[in-house]
């Protein structure tokens, strides 16, 4: 018979690690405990600003969650929202809270090479990579950080 601690551990969700820290102190865009408790409020508030007011300057975004937390594994595979290996699903399955985000939003990063502005750098829109619209300054800043290879 397994010791109780091991048994309890095996029941807890295995949450995949984020690709990179947002910064050294808070790790994510807010401290991890705050994110665990209130992530839905942040993205709910931001979605109204983005969608209805057209203000895309905020720091919370579902797209950013996905880019960092559901980045491709070593073998290039990306988990879909239906799989328990998906960052969001890992916890949501455990807590039995159904999320509707992915009926409309993509559950994987569109550009697998893309990492969100995990640093404090201003986030360029992922589309810009495809259309080569990044200005020289941003490109330089990003390549210094080792974010993209040219």
């Amino acid at each position: 018979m397994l010791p109780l601690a091991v048994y309890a551990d095996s029941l807890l969700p295995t949450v995949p690690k984020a690709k990179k820290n947002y910064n050294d102190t808070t790790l994510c865009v807010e401290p991890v405990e705050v994110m665990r408790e209130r992530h839905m409020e942040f993205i709910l508030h931001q979605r109204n600003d983005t969608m209805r007011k057209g203000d895309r300057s905020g720091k919370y975004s579902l797209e950013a969650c996905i880019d960092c937390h559901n980045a491709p594994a070593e073998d290039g595979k990306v988990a879909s929202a239906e799989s328990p290996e998906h960052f969001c699903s890992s916890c949501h399955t455990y807590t039995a809270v159904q999320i509707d985000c992915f009926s409309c939003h993509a559950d994987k990063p569109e550009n697998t090479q893309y990492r969100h502005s995990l640093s404090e750098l201003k986030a360029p829109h992922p589309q810009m990579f495809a259309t080569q619209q990044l200005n020289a300054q941003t490109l330089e800043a990003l390549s210094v950080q080792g974010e993209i290879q040219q």
Partner: protein
Amino acid sequence: MSQDNNINHYRRQFLSSATAVAGLSLAPGVLLTQVAHASTTGPASNKNRWGMLIDSSKCATGCNDCVTACHKENGIPVMGHPETDAQWIRKVKLTDKTTGHVQSLPLMCQHCEKPPCVDVCPTNASIKREDGVVLVDKHACIGCRYCMMACPYNARSFVHEKVTDQKYPRGIGTVESCTLCVHRIDESNGTKNPACVDACNAEGHKAMWFGDLKDPNSEISQNLQKYGGEQIRADLGLNTGVRYQNIS
């Protein structure tokens, strides 16, 4: 009415010059207000009204480039069911039966100033942004499709099938339509053209213009002022943001 407009115009001019003075009096490098045009990430502003102008005489019959480009840009797949597949923009061919004269034009959401789709929406999902772009907030859309019935241009589509790997958010059970490539507008503050306009220019037809209808110096406003532009179903008084030339 025109007097009212003049008064508002003078008030605005006065207020904006007052703001400029206030801005100058602050410490160097510190500005309390930002000019709406300077920010690419700020909220949509009613200082702009994005619109489109289409010259039907330059639109080639049989050319489908704007449609293809739109659907590629926005990730609208062909599901193999033409009767229900989403259609953000379509080509319309008009033939005069007496003369045999054929006209061709692209038709999409006309981004009305008074959009009937917004009027009828029971959940406030159909919205008109400050800058005149008419959108569906899919977070609030319940898929009742009243807006589709209300739209005189038949511009909206319903997503019937489950979608994955979306390019931009769209999902089963919600209504969608042309967004004037709102992601491009927000990214570039309206300096980038929507995908359809780019495609039309790339093909060399140059039948479409995109721009700010409220900026008298924009190419689209200059063109409209010089040659005029008709609204489709102008009788409805919707004041559409998409205008047409050489249609009859």
